């Protein structure tokens, strides 16, 4: 289904049944004093319609850069050097800012970690929520205000008619996050990109926000791409997960598969090094070494210097992300070792 968007280029219609967001072999490089930083080095992932996909990694893995590249809000030193970002079939990478601005809001939105800096401190909250519908959906001021109050109610802000006129500093952290979610939802996007939105929140408030997001996903069919370093949060909220390390995706699959039977030593290492609230482990096994340099990464597999299962061939060529049965993928040449290790652990108990 083709047509013209409002004053814009031809926008192909949604591919029925296909993923709403698809990233293909994305490369983002940052020019820095010390050299060219390959922050995102060949990332491919899919976000199916109506699903929440988690993107996990530690600091420096490239997960935030990936999100920003999708939305087109990279810092000035960073550039997408190759790859595609397909939203409903349209590649966002080559689009000029004017075209991107028509997509941001109505189709693609983002929520951030620090609500205080993501909200305009001198603009009333209701007006910030109403701005999107006015600009993108052509709503009149009163209609947009009505919609804003309605959204505030939907995201669980009490007494929305009165709080419409409040300023961000009058809200608590959790409430500000709800405001940000309301802004993201205001133009009924298809995908919401989430950049660690609950990392700065207390556990009980995080719980509220995660449940809110899950409910909104279900009710409106919006998809989420959720970036975090906190694995249990992904387990709680998402259906599938991609694990990033050193600028690339090292494992992908359904949450219950990846977190119960990881197929990459890094995922296994992450799971083993974190204490679990549900059970006491006899010991935590840290991942030795430190994160790789993104300017001159190690040859071959980026994780091999820290990997307990490394073999000589791991240094030779960069392993591609290989598909495994069951919709999974791994970038480890010797992923069966993870399985063996888990079995040995289970037998030892």
């Amino acid at each position, binding site marked *: 289904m083709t047509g013209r968007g409002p004053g814009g280029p031809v926008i192909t219609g949604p591919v029925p049944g296909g993923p709403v967001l698809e990233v293909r072999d994305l490369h983002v490089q940052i020019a820095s004093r010390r050299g060219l930083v390959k922050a995102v080095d060949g990332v491919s992932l899919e976000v199916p319609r109506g699903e929440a996909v988690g993107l996990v990694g*530690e*600091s420096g893995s490239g997960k935030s850069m990936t999100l920003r590249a999708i939305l087109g809000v990279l810092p000035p030193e960073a550039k997408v050097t190759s790859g595609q970002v397909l939203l409903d079939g349209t590649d966002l990478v080559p689009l000029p800012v004017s075209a991107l601005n028509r997509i941001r809001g109505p189709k693609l939105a983002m929520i951030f970690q620090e609500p205080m800096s993501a909200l305009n401190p001198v603009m009333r909250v209701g007006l910030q929520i109403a701005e999107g519908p006015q600009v993108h959906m052509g709503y009149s001021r009163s209609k947009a205000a009505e919609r804003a109050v309605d959204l505030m109610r939907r995201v669980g802000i*009490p007494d929305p008619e009165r709080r419409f006129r409040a300023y961000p500093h009058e809200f*608590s*952290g*959790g*409430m500000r996050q709800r405001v940000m979610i309301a802004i993201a939802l205001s133009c009924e996007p298809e995908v919401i990109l989430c950049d660690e939105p609950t990392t700065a929140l*207390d*556990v*009980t*408030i*995080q*719980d*509220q926000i*995660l*449940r809110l997001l*899950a*409910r909104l996903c279900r009710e409106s069919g919006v998809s989420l791409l959720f970036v975090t*370093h*906190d*694995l*249990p*949060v992904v*387990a*709680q*909220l998402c259906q599938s997960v991609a694990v990033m390390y050193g600028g690339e995706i090292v494992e992908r699959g359904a949450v219950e598969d990846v*977190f119960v039977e990881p197929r990459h030593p890094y995922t296994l*290492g*992450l799971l083993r*090094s*974190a*204490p*679990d*609230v*549900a059970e*006491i*482990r006899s*010991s*935590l*096994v*840290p*991942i030795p070494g*430190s*994160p790789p340099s993104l300017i001159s990464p190690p040859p071959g597999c980026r994780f091999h210097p820290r990997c307990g299962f490394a073999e000589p061939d791991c240094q030779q060529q960069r392993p591609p992300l290989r598909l495994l049965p069951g919709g999974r993928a791994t970038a480890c040449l010797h992923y069966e070792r993870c399985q063996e290790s888990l079995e040995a652990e289970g037998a030892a108990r």
Partner: protein
Amino acid sequence: MTGPEPAASPAASGPGAADPAGEAGPLLTATGLSVGFRVGSPAMARRRNEEWILRAVDGVDMTIERGEALALVGESGSGKSTLARALTGLVPLNAGEIRLSGRVLSGRRSRADQRRIQMVFQDPYSSLNPRLTVSSILHELLRVHDIVPRAEVESYSRELLGLVGLTDDALHAYPRQFSGGQRQRVAIARALALRPDLLVADEPVSALDVSVQATILNLLQELRGSLGLTLLLISHNLAVVRHLCDRVAVMYLGRIIEVATTEQLFTAPAHPYTRGLLAAIPRMTASTADEAPAVVGDPPSPLRIPAGCRFRTRCPIAQDICSREDPMLTAAPGQPGHTAACHFAFGEAPPAAAAASSAGLKEEPSPSQS
């Protein structure tokens, strides 16, 4: 009791070890601690219907036994960091007293007293002076407190670094040359240099990457074993607490509302807030996304602490008595170590209350009369 067993015979004179006390009784007892901060002026506070003094710590009693690892758990606004700093002598007390090995610590601590409780801070990037090398940092402390004779300062510093797993070349390095995890090791070495009786760790791993957290947690566990270190761990992360600590105290709005062994707390929490807190933690196993949140609403402002039980505005079982009477910490029948500040902690639970029927959010209550 769960958690690692403290060593039977701690290294008595090696670096980091506490001075052998050989005394019976708890290492630290605190009674009636209160810490408040002035906010603006009384007139402005009255106009905003708030209190003038922010009661960060509002009447806390606690004991820490020798050799144990006690966790102080709470969310933002609970007062746990303020309490930790008050115990360490960094923040003055408005009321209450702290006894270390039975002796009262005065308001302005002597240098000898200050030495005995040391702290490891949360942010590894601001807890080391960027202009001093590791050896300068350590030497200064060792000299000022005369821990070892001058000639031995260098070798003692090396021993300290070895204790936390750093090589000798760390001595002459500046903090900027270290990673986050390494900086925390230096911070731990610094705290241990003065051979404190109690090590207070304020969110020691929160600012570190997940894979690095394990190394620091393992280190703390090991130091407990080899040095017989008494540890007070401040954390919002209950998984870390479960892994490392013997006992847990839960704080809410400036008060301790439950104390129990780790096992008791995680398997049979008595206070509704503790139950909510545990339920709110995301798990790796099947999600419960369809259920209502564990704890609803926002915490009240610490300038408007509710009268009666301070948790009642968010409590699923709040009753009338909860707004009239502020519950004290009472012990579980038969389990003196497990206390909770709730009228319904260990008895039968009341029906889900009429007072809390709108499980939604309430208006802010007016400041309490006490």
